[in-house]
């Protein structure tokens, strides 16, 4: 039948009565919604769950073969609660998750390659956006690795400032975690409350570092600027009410029966599995292992400070949440002691502008809010790092989601993922 050209009013009756022969749509095309006589080429659909190429590995072949009654569901990459740009292909049986296949790389910048082609100092600004919730820890690891390469001693005041700003950043990160976690479980209020705390802290860190998010503050051999009046007055102001404010924020969720009953028993992980999946940080401590680098492998001035390493044994989402809230209180204790003991002195070690460490290798790790941040630096004697490997805990914890999720309901996917607290900037590097 030739395509009909109609102008103005459509002759509806005529169209209804016209008998259209059954038409087969050739493969790779579809009919236009406006005019069924027009064949349109199918676009290559990137978000089709099944990849348009043969499986590359045994595991991929296994995952993309559907069993009886199973179906695929694509989540992301623009899903609001994936904490970044992450695509997860879920294999579902009814409402139960059978298996997942996270697809990464949407935020990949090739930061390790960029660092190899940059100066030692430029590394700091390159690694900042990896961990955009708690940038200071992502700076801390490579900076200390370079200091080991250079055999440089950091002034004590600089170490105190590092710990002080780092612990503030940890609180900001955990506060945001609380909000996110509740948001992913369906509660809107906590994130509004937690942003009050977070905003206070990023504002005071902005007074100290000049930036709200990507601080670019630590330097090889010290920090970029000394404590200033605005930072100290904001900090003093906030510290005077921080404990009560955080307590009230926490009670908002801790005393909410819907929240606690929903989160307990969800995504349980035992110690052995956690170690097999290389998990660190609060996620490991929630299984009962008191592994915190600040105590197990003390660095900076942490040996001089008094604080506890809270652990829990349940290993479920609620345990991970409660543990982080406990860590906020410990961080407040550390900040108190830092302010109390803050020594005078220089904030930078004496170093030449152009750094040429002797050839060698150094590994350094710090305990961040999400786990162990590591940096493995190799120097070949030039002013550029030969190699810098960045170890980000988010990457490891996102992998563990695949182990925790099977058997849970689809609605729990985001809750479990949020309780492990990955940040996609760090996952994709």
């Amino acid at each position: 039948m030739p395509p009909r050209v109609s102008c103005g009013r459509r002759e509806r009756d005529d169209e209804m009565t016209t008998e259209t022969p059954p038409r087969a749509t050739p493969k790779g095309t579809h009919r236009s919604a406006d005019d069924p006589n027009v064949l349109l080429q199918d676009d290559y659909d990137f978000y089709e769950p099944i990849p348009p190429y043969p499986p590359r590995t045994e595991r991929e072949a296994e995952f993309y073969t559907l069993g009886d009654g199973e179906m695929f569901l694509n989540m992301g990459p623009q899903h609001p609660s994936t904490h970044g740009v992450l695509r997860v292909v879920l294999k579902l049986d009814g409402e139960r998750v059978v298996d997942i296949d996270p697809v990464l790389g949407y935020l990949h910048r090739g930061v390790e390659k960029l660092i190899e082609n940059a100066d030692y100092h430029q590394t700091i600004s390159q690694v900042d956006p990896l961990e955009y919730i708690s940038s200071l820890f992502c700076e801390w690891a490579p900076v200390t690795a370079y200091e080991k390469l250079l055999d440089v001693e950091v002034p004590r005041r600089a170490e105190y400032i590092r710990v002080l700003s780092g612990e503030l950043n940890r609180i900001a990160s955990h506060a945001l975690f609380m909000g996110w976690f509740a948001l992913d479980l369906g509660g809107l209020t906590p994130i509004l409350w937690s942003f009050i705390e977070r905003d206070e802290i990023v504002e005071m860190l902005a007074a100290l570092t000049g930036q709200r998010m990507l601080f670019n503050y630590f330097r090889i051999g010290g920090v970029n600027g000394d404590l200033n009046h605005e930072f100290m007055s904001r900090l003093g102001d906030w510290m005077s009410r921080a404990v009560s404010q955080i307590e009230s924020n926490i009670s908002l969720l801790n005393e909410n029966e819907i929240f606690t009953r929903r989160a307990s028993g969800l995504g349980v992980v035992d110690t052995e599995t956690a170690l097999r999946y290389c998990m660190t940080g609060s996620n490991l401590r929630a299984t009962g292992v008191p592994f915190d680098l600040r105590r197990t492998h003390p660095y900076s001035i942490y040996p001089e400070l008094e604080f506890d390493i809270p652990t829990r044994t349940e290993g479920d989402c609620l345990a991970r949440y409660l543990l982080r809230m406990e860590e906020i209180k410990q961080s407040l204790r550390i900040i108190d002691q830092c302010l109390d003991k803050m020594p005078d002195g220089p904030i930078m070690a004496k170093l030449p502008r152009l750094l040429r460490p002797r050839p060698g290798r150094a590994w350094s790790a710090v305990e961040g809010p999400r786990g162990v941040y590591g940096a493995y630096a190799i120097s070949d004697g030039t002013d550029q790092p030969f190699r810098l490997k960045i170890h980000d805990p988010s990457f490891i914890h996102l992998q563990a989601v695949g182990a925790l999720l099977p058997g849970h309901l689809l609605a729990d996917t985001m809750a479990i993922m949020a309780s492990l607290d990955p940040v996609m900037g760090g996952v994709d590097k």
Partner: protein
Amino acid sequence: MDRALARRLEARFESVLRGPARQRHDQTEIRIAAGDVQDVLRTLHDEPALNFQMLADLAGVDTGTEMQVVYHLWSATSADWLRVIVEGLSRDDPRIPSVTFLWQGAEWMERETYDMFGIIFEGNRDLRRIYMPPDYTSFPLRKDFYLADDAARSPGAGVRHMERTRGPVDAAPGVLRQTRA
């Protein structure tokens, strides 16, 4: 520095170590060949006296002449980080046994190393690209992969030291940039 750990490792792995254990700051370093990876790491993981149950990191390194895979391990039995360097992988066909039988979490780290260096981890059942798209054909962290705006090959190369990338221009003909580390 944990001198006792170095002595223990040297005594335990005498036959497979390539050179003595090196120590600097809070790190102890041993070097082994690709064939011994599974045995050495299993011993480090399982033996109660060593008990290195935590794999902190797995990194690939392209030294310009060979490939290396570097493991960082943590154990409560020592105050040091243990670095196991697997050296001597050929750049043309780097192959190494996987350690996913000990740490399931190494699977993604090995995928990342494969994606960036092309190192094949035999025994990893999901060794596909993780960051780069599936139709990508290069291995970006290899030393013979240059950035698009590589200043070393631009007409203004060498004008300022900060803009110069290290590449074959600095090395002898036919040799890539190497590390002495």
